[in-house]
């Protein structure tokens, strides 16, 4: 046991027992971040802030929500929204944050793609991030079901039905997932458990892994520049702050992030109080009715692109399901599909830059057509966009990057 002296204050008392000074150094004041980054690197902290808001607002909602098919709808729309003081505020924060977190996740993800932050040494950061994306998707979907409105119910029916496409055991899996032959009370209660316990715990563990994965390869920067972190740290500590290419997480990096968060919160609370409808489908304010299918069934906006890949192959449900499966996991393989090992932002890799914007364009088309009814020309647009998505990832990207490698990497 270490020698314990009489402490000269609370911090010292804790430091002798828990090593808090060392911990603060490792986690904050001597955790080094490159200096040449822009506000897009603040998205990670914005996500952490949004996730915290989701957890806190979720706990408040949990106090009044009833996970019972007969009571769920009224417990949300009457008890929480109208009877509980500021219940509406917690609910709107929860619903808007759930939608906004996907906006930021997508930005975070495409920034990483643009700057090549998934490559050479940073694969684990990318893979743990993509795992977070997938678990967040499951978390969002299980939460969307809980108000037990019309769209909740039918979205659950459609999504659980997808498991029916598994060869041989499909129908049994569907029944096992639902806990019933149809989506019913058993389905609601198990998705409730997933939403409030299992998935959040998995998310928290993954967030820790994601942060930890940054520790050794360090955060990427605007130029994809590789520098000697140890030498740069030394310069900073010696006081040569202007020369050093790194900054400490606290207070330098966070001072910028906190500004970004505050600016973001102005917009966020505008949405919460005046424009929450974008995050709450009006159809979901009709109670679930198992006998009446809504005219149009569509997922929340953040799933539209993969939903469109699913139904893009309008002539074959099986092909659609396979393409959908590929779309769900394809991003995981990005570090290996991109064969060029050079880390550089897309604007210094001309062919990759074109690929990047084509992919964004294709995802926008898929998202927009994923909501439109599949009629007339829409189905062909959906088909072309779905095929393009697969080709862009499976064919075009490897070819571009192999050519780039042969030319000796990016300029």
């Amino acid at each position, binding site marked *: 046991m270490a020698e314990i002296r009489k402490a000269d204050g609370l911090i010292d008392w804790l430091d002798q027992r828990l090593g808090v000074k060392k911990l603060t150094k490792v986690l904050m004041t001597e955790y080094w971040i490159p200096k040449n980054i822009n506000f897009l690197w603040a998205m990670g902290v914005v996500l952490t802030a949004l996730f915290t808001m989701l957890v806190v607002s979720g706990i408040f909602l949990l106090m009044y929500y009833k996970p019972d098919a007969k009571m769920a709808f*009224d417990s949300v729309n009457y008890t929480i929204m109208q009877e509980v003081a500021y219940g509406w505020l917690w609910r709107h924060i929860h619903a808007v944050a759930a939608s906004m977190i996907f906006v930021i996740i997508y930005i975070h993800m495409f920034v990483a793609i643009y700057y090549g932050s998934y490559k050479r040494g940073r694969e684990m950061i990318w893979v743990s991030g993509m795992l977070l994306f997938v678990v967040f998707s499951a978390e969002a979907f299980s939460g969307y079901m809980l108000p037990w409105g019309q769209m909740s119910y039918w979205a659950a029916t459609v999504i659980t039905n997808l498991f029916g496409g598994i060869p041989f055991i499909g129908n049994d899996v569907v029944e096992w997932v639902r806990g019933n032959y149809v989506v019913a009370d058993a389905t609601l209660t198990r998705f409730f458990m997933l939403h409030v316990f299992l998935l959040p715990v998995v998310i928290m563990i993954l967030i820790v892994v994601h942060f930890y994965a940054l520790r050794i390869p360090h955060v990427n920067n605007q130029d994809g520049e590789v520098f000697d972190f140890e030498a740069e740290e030394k310069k900073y500590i010696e006081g040569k*702050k202007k020369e050093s290419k790194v*900054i400490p997480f606290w*207070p330098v990096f966070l001072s910028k992030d906190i*500004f970004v968060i505050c600016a973001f919160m102005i917009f966020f*609370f505008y949405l919460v109080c005046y424009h929450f409808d974008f995050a709450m489908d009006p159809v979901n304010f009709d*109670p679930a009715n198992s006998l009446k299918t809504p005219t149009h069934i569509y997922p929340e*906006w953040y799933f539209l692109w993969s939903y469109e890949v699913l139904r893009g192959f309008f002539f074959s449900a099986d092909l659609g399901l396979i393409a959908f499966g590929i779309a769900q996991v394809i991003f995981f393989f990005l570090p290996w599909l991109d064969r060029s090992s050079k880390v550089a932002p897309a604007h210094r890799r001309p062919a990759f830059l074109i690929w990047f914007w084509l992919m964004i364009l294709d995802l926008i088309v898929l998202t*927009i057509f994923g909501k439109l009814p599949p009629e007339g020309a829409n189905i062909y647009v959906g088909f072309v966009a779905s095929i393009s998505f697969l080709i862009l990832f499976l064919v075009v990207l490897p070819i571009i990057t192999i050519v780039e490698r042969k030319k000796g990497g990016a300029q």
Partner: protein
Amino acid sequence: MKEFKILILLIVVIGIIYWGVEPLAHSIMHPKVAPADYTFSDLEKIDLSKGDATKGKTLVEENCTACHGIKSQNIPAPMDNASAAGAYGVVPPDLSDIGAVFDHNFLANFIKNPVKATLLSHKFGENTPYPMPGYDWMSNDDISNIVAYFVSIAPQSLTDAQVFDQACQRCHSVEYAKTYALTPESDLEKYLGAKAPDLSMMIRSRGEHTLSIFINDPQKLLPGTSMPRVGLDQKAEKQIINYLQKIGDSKKAQRDGLGIKIMIFFVVMALLAYAWKRRIWKDLH
């Protein structure tokens, strides 16, 4: 400057996605329909200017009170709600307030030919008669006398809830206001062919604009529905929407008031944070 360019690019991309997923998709899934027609221009224009309320009173006593009550004139309904629903399929309305809620020309046309006025010819005909007989054998003068009588006994103003009770409560419940349909559910389902939905959340699921068009003419948005065109005048319809707003979205005022305060708080925080950031970063460049 570079960061501004990135921000603008982000806003443009997100803006395009938002436009596609919200307004564009909405306009395609819910095509525009003609605006609400409060003149009910498809109906015959009956001259109501010479209506005589005293003559109307006699006509009402002779023709209407066998089925309808007029509480304000101490004429009770001849049957209780359950028996009336059993006999007619739906509870006949009390007539005390109808002159204050319905468009007068609509009311005259309704008395003359209810199926035509309510736009329910797809539901009621020779074999399935409408519970109220048409009075097309009556002269337009007599009908205008009846309308004049209803207008003369109608109160000057009604609360939003009273308008709702008159126009909707025979079929619809509003559970969140502890208001329940007058007609028992089983009778109603037989009469309409479907359950009448609870209206507690209609303001959130349909929105003010859609509701106003729907109430004015249900067939326009839901062809073949068994909901009648009830013939509300513009003021009464607005009161009903207000009522649904108060029930389904009771915290709107609190939301509107609080939102701006939270936003101002974060504007101040953002300015402070920016000043702090400037101070810390000035040593770095």
